Structures are given as structure tokens and as C-alpha cells.
């Protein structure tokens, strides 16, 4: 069963002056059960809006969201006990301690102080748990928000940039936490800007641009989509190298001014070595051209941007 199903979701915000912003423009999204699902997109792509629609906070202009099989516009309360969330910067009562905040929320679903203590421990706030939230640093607030999301021991986590404002150690902790939660069989839906983090944490990703999904699937699928395989060659004289490779029948171009990209399956790389050696050229480096999520992301979101501008 799909944990999250979004179909043809459109959201148009209306401002007082009558201006309209299309935040989501026919978004389709399907998140299967279990594992970490990365939801990526540049600023203003509509990530937060999607999450708000999923949580019934914002009413879609068109389309529908289903979470754990129920329509989130009307029946969300039937499944909310199984869903932990962070929406943008988590907001809690500044004049209560972190512990009191979580206890008050927990009581709404019969969750006791013991569970609250455990969660505070887990997010590294045990020491400051009894201080007022308004004395927390923004990273500590973020940790408390993560704690609130974990408090229901949820099957599904919907997290909007959970690593926001955290230090490098905190970012790594969040990444490990997400991975662990995913490995436990929970479904973790996480929006993020930090692509390198997602690349190594997520099982599946969707890339959002201007309110539409421009790529979705397993990380490997998204990385390979639309990109020919290739190898990167480095040697002292790039121009000679390109000439030699081209005359040997390869499709080679100078990339980034300091190496050569040859379009070919990486398994055949030995042919490149020979072609160069035949011309008396010796390479200093040869490696497969592995697309990273960042490159794919920039390509996809730029294309979509240009498409939208026309």
C-alpha cells in the first residue's frame, strides 16, 4: 500500500491584494511503505506547501492527498496518531520547558512522561529539557521539534528540512537517525536542500521544481536518467588528449577545463588507456563519471526553470 498518494495537486495561494501564487501545479507523488524518501527542490519549489497539504493545514485548490489511505482534507484525525511531523521551523511554546511542551502534546494521545524523557534523551536535549524553550538555540529548537515528531513512535514521519540550523555533528546525527528509522521499516518522507546528505540516506527521491515533480524513483534511477555513461580522463595536455581520443573514434570533450569526459561504458575504460598510449600520451587519472544528485538536481531544475520561463 502507498503511504502517501498525491494526485494532480494544485495549490494557488491568494493574497489580500488579489495576487495569486501557484505553489503547486499538478503534482503527482507516490511514496511506498518503508524506507527513506527524499523530497528535493529549490527554494520556493513547493515542498513545504506539499507537506502542509498532506497534513490538512492547507486546502488544495485542486487534486487530493491521501495519507495512510485516508483523505487528508477530511479524515486526517483517524491516522494522525501514526504520523510524526515537522513543518518548517518547529514551533513550541516559548514559555514552557522543552519537557513540558512534549508532555502536553503527548497527553493528547495518552503518551506519558517516560516516553517524553526517552525522546529528549534521544535528541540530545536531556540536559536542557527543563529550561524554557525561549532560552534554546535554534539548533536546540530544531532538536526539540525532531523529538516531538518522534514522540508518537510513528509509522510515518513527514519531516520538512529536519536538519535546518543544525551543526555538522547534528546533521550527521539526523542523517543516521533517518536511516535507522527507515531501516526499522518506518516510512520517512523528508524534504531537503542538502543533496549530498539525501543521496546517501534516501532509498527513493522525487525532485520538485516549480510545483511539479520532474524526476522520481530510486536514487540510482534518478541519477542515471537522461545521462549517458562516461569516464573522466586526466592528463597533462588536454587538447592533445582530446584529439587523440577523437581520432580513435571516441566521443570526447574537455569538461571543467581540467579533464576530459569520454562517453562510453566505464567497463571499457581500458580502451581509452590504449588509445592514449598509442599516441605517446599517459593519463594521470581515469575514473567513471558518477553523476551526483547535485548535478542531476541542478540540470533538472534549471531545465524546468527555462521551460517555465518560455
Amino acid at each position: 500500500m502507498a503511504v502517501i498518494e498525491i494526485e494532480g495537486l494544485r495549490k494557488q495561494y491568494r493574497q489580500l491584494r488579489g495576487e495569486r501564487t501557484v505553489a503547486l501545479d499538478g503534482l503527482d507523488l507516490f511514496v511506498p511503505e518503508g524506507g527513506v524518501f527524499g523530497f528535493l527542490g529549490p527554494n520556493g519549489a513547493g515542498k513545504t506547501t506539499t507537506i502542509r497539504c498532506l497534513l490538512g493545514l492547507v486546502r488544495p485548490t485542486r487534486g487530493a492527498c491521501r495519507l495512510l489511505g485516508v483523505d487528508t482534507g477530511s479524515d486526517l484525525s483517524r491516522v494522525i496518531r501514526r504520523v510524526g511531523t515537522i513543518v518548517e521551523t518547529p514551533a513550541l511554546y516559548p514559555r514552557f520547558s522543552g519537557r513540558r511542551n512534549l508532555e502536553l502534546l503527548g497527553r493528547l494521545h495518552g503518551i506519558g512522561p517516560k516516553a517524553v524523557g526517552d525522546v529528549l534523551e534521544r535528541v540530545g536535549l536531556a540536559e536542557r529539557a527543563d529550561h524554557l524553550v525561549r532560552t534554546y538555540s535554534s539548533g536546540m529548537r530544531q532538536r526539540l521539534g525532531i523529538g516531538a515528531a518522534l514522540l508518537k513512535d510513528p509509522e510515518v514521519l513527514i519531516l520538512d528540512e529536519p536538519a535546518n540550523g543544525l551543526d555538522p555533528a547534528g546533521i550527521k546525527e539526523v542523517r543516521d537517525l533517518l536511516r535507522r528509522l527507515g531501516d526499522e521499516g518506518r516510512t520517512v518522507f523528508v524534504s531537503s536542500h542538502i543533496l549530498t546528505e539525501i543521496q546517501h540516506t534516501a532509498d527513493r527521491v522525487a525532485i520538485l521544481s516549480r510545483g511539479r515533480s520532474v524526476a522520481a524513483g530510486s536514487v540510482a534511477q534518478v541519477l542515471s536518467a537522461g545521462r549517458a555513461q562516461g569516464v573522466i580522463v586526466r592528463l597533462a595536455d588536454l587538447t592533445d588528449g582530446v584529439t587523440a581520443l577523437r581520432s580513435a573514434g571516441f566521443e570526447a570533450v574537455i569538461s571543467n577545463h581540467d579533464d576530459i569526459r569520454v562517453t562510453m561504458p566505464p567497463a571499457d575504460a581500458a580502451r581509452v588507456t590504449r588509445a592514449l598510449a598509442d599516441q605517446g600520451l599517459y593519463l594521470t587519472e581515469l575514473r567513471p563519471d558518477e553523476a551526483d544528485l547535485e548535478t542531476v538536481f541542478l540540470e533538472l531544475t534549471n531545465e524546468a526553470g527555462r521551460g517555465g520561463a518560455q
Partner: protein
Amino acid sequence: MTALLAAEIRRMTSRRLFRVVAALTVLAIVIASLIVALRSRSTSGIAGDRRFHLTALAVALEGTSPVLIIAAWLLGASFIGADWHAGTVTTLLTWEPRRLRVMMAKLAGCLTVVFLLVIAVQILLAGGLALAAAVRGTTEGVDVAWMRHTAGIALRVAVLSGVGSAIGFAIASVARNTAAALGVGFGYTVIVENLVRGLRPQWVPWLVGDNAVMFISGQSAGPSFHRTILQAGLLLVAYAVALLIVSAAVFRARDVT
């Protein structure tokens, strides 16, 4: 629902504004009782009776009522206004998505606390003045009828405070902001009511201010109009309920961003 209500009551009582209001009124009551006691002369001479009469409590309650009602209105408006300001409405809705429930719990928490606060303040005031009367004044004229009359005033002040806080709550909840609610309240009492009094005197029986005076004191403040205490009270409650219905409908329909 009870957990939700308990949380809101707890939140209301731990608000800074609530604590400041409570502390200031206690201070004011202590000072007032002291002044009353000091100025009271224990004898009645030729110059007239200069003793403090406990029977003046009714007047004291009427006199303090505007302050209490304005404080209640502020508490109501800022309670929900602060929630929007802190963004905690979003958090709460991800724990209890049924918006009507959330709003009812907030309103009920606010009304309970305001009502009890106002009752407590008045009991304290009565206690302070009773002490002053017992020590340096007189309790002459205090009988069952007087007690019933005075208790009636105190109860009506508490009810009206509740109505006031509900109205403040409703406006701030639509505006999602305390300051806007204060502006609306100020504009209404200072501008609208005075314009109506000047330009459309026949509408005066429908004004909040005039009905509030009628409800507390049983008399109309300005040009007289006929309305019993009960009628005035019901009209004010009806206004508050109407505003609350509008604000609940808005809260249910509008995006939370």
C-alpha cells in the same frame, strides 16, 4: 478533549500577561484596602458619618468592573494572538487536526481562567474591604438582601469579563494577531460607539458599551432605554456567540501557513 483543555488552561495561567494582571490587581486591592482603612474615622460626629461602610462594596465592584473587563478582553485576544505569533497553532494541528475541537478547547480554557480570575479578584477585594470595615469602619446595613445584590453584581462582572474575553478571542483569532484585535476594539469603542451616540441615538440600545453598563448596574449610562439586566446580558452574549461562530468558520476554512 480534556487533555487539550487542561493544556490550554495550563498555558493560559502561565502567560506573562495573566501573571502581571493577577499580580497588579492583588497589589491594587491591598493598597485600596489600606487607604480605605486609613481614611476611615471610627466615630460618626457632627461633621457627618466619615466611617467606611462595607455597603460601599457594591459601588467598588461596579467601579472596578471596566478595568477587569478590559483586562479580560486583552487576555482573550492575546491568548490566541500569541498562539498565532509563535506558530504553535500549526504544531497543535499536527497532533489534533480537528480544528473545531482545538478552537473550542482554547476558548474554554481562556473563559474558565478569566471567569475564575475575575471572581477571585472580587472575592479578594471584598475580603480586603471587609477587613477594613471590621477594623476601622462599619458593617452597618449588611444583610442578606445586600449580600444577594452585591453577589449579583460580582457574578455579572465575571460573566461580562467572560463575554469580553470571548470577543477579544474571536477578533484576534480571525486577525491571527493581537495588535489587530486591539485596534479593532479601540476603534469600535472610541469611534463607532461615539459616532452612533452622536449621529444615530436611536441605535444606542444596541451598543455594546451601553448594554454592558445596563447589565452591570441596571441603569443606562446615557439616554435612557428600556432593557432589563437579563435582556442586556443576553444581547451581549449573543454578540459574542455570533463573533465566535464567524471566527470558528474562518478558522476551519482558512489555510494555516
